[in-house]
Every structure is written in C-alpha cells, then in structure tokens.
C-alpha cells in the first residue's frame, strides 16, 4: 500500500509538472502582451518596460517557468513584496498573490462540488438501484425516462429557471449565495441547495442509468445466482453481492467525472454569481492573467490527480483481484 502511494504520488508530481509547463508555453504561443493589458490604454514605452520587468515577463520563457516552479517551494520576491511558499505567482490584475486568491475562493467551489457529488451519488445510485430491482415495472420506467430528460438539461437554463420559479415566484428556497459553513451552517446549506441540485441534475441522470445497467448486468452473473441458490435473502443478494460487483465501474467513472464536475462548477458559479475558483478562472482568461490561470489549472489538476489515486485505492479495496503494486 505505501509503495503504491509512493509510486502514484511520484507519477502525480510528474503529471502536474507537465500540465503546468504545457499551460505556460501554450500561453506564450498565443501572441499577446499582458503587460500592455495591465499598463492601460495610454502607456509610454518606459512604463511598459517597467511593468514588464515587474511582472517578470522580460525574461526568457524558460527562465520564467523556472522561477515560477522554484517559487512554489521557496517563495519569491516581487517588487510589490514577498510571496511566501507555496507561491504560485502574483496576480497583477487582482493585486494579490495567486495562492491567497485561490485559498479565498476554494471553500466556495469545494462546498459546491462536494455537495453536488453527494446529491448525485445518493440520488443517482439510489434511483438506479430501484430501477434495477424493479426492472420493466413502472418504477423502472419512471426512473429511466427521468434520467433521459435529466441528461439533456443545461446548467445555465435550469439554474435561471429554478431561481425564478423556486425563489422569485414560490419563495420556497433561499436565494443562491455562499455563506461560510463555520459561520452559519444553516445558511450555508440553504444558500447552496439550488446550486447543488442544478449542478447535479445531469450527473444524477447519468449515474441512474449507469447504476441500473451495472446492477442488471451483475444480477445475471453466476455468482449472484449462487448467492440466491444458497438461500441468501433477496435484499442481501442485491446489496451485498450484486451491488458489490456493480460498484467498481461506478467508482471508476466517478474518478473520471471529477473533471466534468469542476467544469460544471464553473458554469454553476457563473449562473448563480458564486465567487469560487470557476469565477476566478474565467476572469483570469478574460484579463490575460497568466499566473492566475496557471494557479487555477494547477490546483484543479492536483485535485483530480489526487482524487484518482484515492479512487484506485478504493477500487482495490472493493475488488480483491486487483492488487496495489
């Protein structure tokens, strides 16, 4: 297990290096001048030069990347002040170290994605199980059609509609907003409820279908028949045998889906004006704020890579035929 972790963490470090380098050089492949952008409309050449220097973009690209990389571990000094390790650079647009900006926004995005994941895992898997248990009967048909409709939903459209109907018209729900969990758990919950539901709709639909088909497949497996042949009650057969086998593929897909979930979170944050990482990344693109973009990409990639290590470990835990080595 510890060897597995060590190997995977090393692999993760390599992947993250590659991702950051690619992002870095891609950004420079596109002709643009962040300094001019930062400098403003009327910008004398001397000032532009100064801005360039302050931003650190008067150096060769490779050197820039090197400084950036070192900064993560050792911190950096800018003309604006010291940026402590882990330093992901300094946003001249936000006038803030990148890391601080991300730490500020992180709880919002984390709350949004974890909450949505809980919702879609609970409902998706639950409905899929019910559909599988009631194959061909009304409950199955309802779940299957609902998941077809759900899978074709658009976050922005559903989000605006849900806010208008549930908040403005019926006044059943709180207006979507982020409140800190530690400050007021109830407000945190009620403010995120609509974003959670909206972000999770498509996933719920997909997980319903996936769980159903995975369960149906497992239920026709020989070992499930054996479980019934030895007198296990149908509930046990369903949960302890068939579900045990159906879980594997679902967990794998869940690992893959984290990227899509973060993508969905960006749109959801835009829809409900939540100030999370998604909003940060869109602003970074609009403002040509390379350090910010890099920081966001790196944090998202780290989350995905680490999460996939956890998923693989979980898979090995579920299926004894898979060995971690």
């Amino acid at each position, binding site marked *: 297990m510890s060897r597995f972790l060590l190997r995977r963490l090393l692999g993760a470090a390599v992947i993250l290096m590659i991702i950051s380098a690619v992002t870095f050089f891609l950004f420079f492949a596109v002709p643009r001048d962040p300094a001019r952008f930062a400098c403003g409309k009327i910008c004398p050449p001397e000032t532009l030069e100064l801005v360039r220097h302050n931003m650190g973009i008067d150096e060769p690209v490779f050197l820039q990347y090197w400084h950036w990389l070192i900064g993560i571990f050792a911190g950096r000094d800018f003309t604006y002040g010291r940026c402590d390790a882990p330093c992901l650079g300094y946003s001249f647009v936000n006038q803030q170290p990148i890391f601080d900006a991300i730490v500020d926004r992180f709880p919002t995005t984390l709350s949004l994605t974890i909450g949505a994941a809980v919702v879609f895992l609970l409902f998706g898997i639950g409905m899929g199980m019910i559909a599988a248990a009631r194959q061909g009967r009304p409950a199955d048909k309802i779940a299957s059609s609902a998941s077809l409709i759900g899978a074709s939903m658009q976050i922005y459209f559903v989000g605006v509609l849900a806010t208008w109907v549930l908040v403005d018209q019926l006044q059943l729900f709180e207006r979507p907003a982020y409140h800190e969990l530690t400050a007021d758990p109830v407000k945190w919950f009620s403010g995120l409820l609509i974003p959670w539901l909206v972000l999770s709709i498509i996933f719920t639909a997909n997980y319903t279908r996936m769980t159903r088909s995975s369960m149906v497949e497992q239920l026709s497996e*020989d070992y499930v028949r054996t479980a019934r042949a030895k007198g296990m009650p149908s509930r046990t057969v369903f949960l302890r045998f068939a579900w045990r086998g159906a879980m594997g593929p679902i967990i794998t897909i869940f690992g893959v889906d984290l990227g899509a979930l973060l993508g969905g979170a960006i749109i959801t944050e835009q829809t409900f004006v939540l100030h999370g990482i998604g909003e940060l990344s869109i602003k970074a693109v609009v403002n040509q704020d390379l350090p910010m973009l890099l920081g966001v990409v790196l944090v998202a990639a780290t989350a995905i890579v680490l999460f996939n290590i956890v998923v693989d470990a979980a898979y090995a835990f579920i299926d004894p035929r898979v060995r971690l080595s």
Partner: protein
Amino acid sequence: MTIPFLSVRDLTVDFDTEDGVVHAVDGLSFDVEKGTTLGIVGESGSGKSVTNLAVLGLHDPAYTKISGEIVLDGRELTTAPRRELERLRGNKVAMIFQDPLTSLSPYHSVGRQISETYRRHTGASRGEARGRAVEMLRRVGIPHPVSRVDDYPHQFSGGMRQRVMIAMALVCDPDLLIADEPTTALDVTVQAQILDLLKELQEQTGTAIILITHDLGVVANAAQEVLVMYAGRAVERGTVREVLGTPRHPYTWGLLSSMPRLRSSVDVPLVPVRGTPPSLIHVPPGCPFHPRCDYQAQAGPDLCVGDRPELSPHRGHGDACYLTPAHKREIFADQIKERL
C-alpha cells in the same frame, strides 16, 4: 409404496420472451430417492438446467410460468412462498454449478462464502461458522484449510474452486444436492477426483444427488438412475444398466453413438446425432425428435407426427417412442450395438 424423497410431476416451464413463449420444459416427471444419484443427460438446450433451477425456485416469476408439482420430502415447492424457498435453499437443497470461477463471488473470501451460508441457516456465531468452514474445506480435500480459509477464489485452481463450491453446498448437510455439470469446466483427472469426492460425501451423508451432464461416461460411473431429456421432455428413463446397456429410444442410441468415451474400439467412426435441436418456441408436433429420427417409417405411418408419445411403461425402464419393443430390440441389436 413409499413416497419418493423428491418427486417431480408434469413439470412445465415456459419463458415469456420477445420472440415468443419458450417451452423449455414440458410435462416432465421423475423421482429421486435418498442416498441415490439420478443422472440427467441430454444435448445442450434440452432443459436440464431449467428443470433444476425450477426445483430451487430460482426462475424469475416475472417472465416464467411454472406448472406441475415439485414435492420435496412432502412439501410442495412450486407454490411455496418465497421466504420458505429461501430457507430451503442452501439448507435442504443445495446446488453446484458448472463454472466454479464465475459461480463463486470474487469479492468475498471462500471462508466467508461458506460460513455465511451456515450462519444463515443455523444461526451459528461467527466463530462457530468459521470453524465449520475450515472443517468443510478439510472434508473436500483442500490442503492447509486453516490458512486458506481467508483466501479468495481467484487464488485457487479450477479443481480447488469446485471443491470450495462443494464445501459451500454441503455445509448445511443438504438432503438433496443438484450438481449442474460440475466437472465440465475441469480437466479429465480433476473431473474424476471431483466425482469421487461427491460419491464419498454421499456415502457419508446419504444425500440424494441430481447429476446433470452431457457425458454418459460420467453417468455410467456416478449414477444409479438416468433420465434422458430431449426438448424439455423425458425420452427415456431407467437404471444406468438398463438405459446404457439396452437403450430403447432412437435419441439415446444417437447419444451413445456420439459418445467417444463409452466406445470400445477406436476405429468405428463417431456418429453425431444428425440435425439440430428443435426450436423450443415452435416445438415440432408429435414426437419432438421425429425430424431427426431415422426410424419413423418402422414405427408406422404418421404415428410420429400425430400425438406426442408418452413415457411407457410408467415405472422402471421407460421410453417415449412409437416403435414396438420388438423393433427396438431388433434395431439396437442389429445396427446400434456394434457402433458402441
């Protein structure tokens, strides 16, 4: 007259499918006595598995229609409530399947799979059940059972897995063991070991066994009674001596001629039963075997395509064919015997 331990009467199993109703078993009757082994033989698709899954009540009632009687030790099973069947399975009636790799759960240790069956039916404690699992593994000949009890099926060889399967089936001392092609997936030496093991365990416990197989050689070695099935019906029934020694039904002749392991001389060519098994959705009228049968003319004009032949006589060595007993004896002696 004693009541047989398991008595199946006029069993019919129909599946509703998209293509139509599959008549997988049609009017099948047979008995099994305690301490004896009934071999069920027949080509693929003849309804052997379907019959025995029906005994355990393992068909999905959503699309399966079962009629007839299955009486086990005085209890009628076709109408028994689900809970009663669940208490019976693995306890009084156990089943082992063809492929021990796919039939064991890959997610649970073998000890767990054996002990959970025991706990389910006896309410034993975890510790007791574990002890019982070790004891069962020892009885079926797994070396070092104490250290292997926590291993998973993929850590065992094919033959060992089938032993585990048998240990699991026998953990509650069932009165009836249904073995559905228990050796088909195994190589020949292991096959013999598994059959010996079943025989030995039967001597110790007096379990009745239904042994399903394609292989008449297995039947000759392991069973006392035989039931030959064709298209969901019994075409011949009797003791192993009767059915294999003086077979009466043209289908049994065909099976015997196509069986390499029973044949005495190597130079006689194998004769497979010509044609293919019939559709079970549109079963041929009359004798379902008639499209493949070479002796229709001898049976008499239109007899074979008219009514369905019944198994006769009702007890002892019976067969479902319109040929006269004299004809059967004659054809067997003149044309079939030399091929075997």
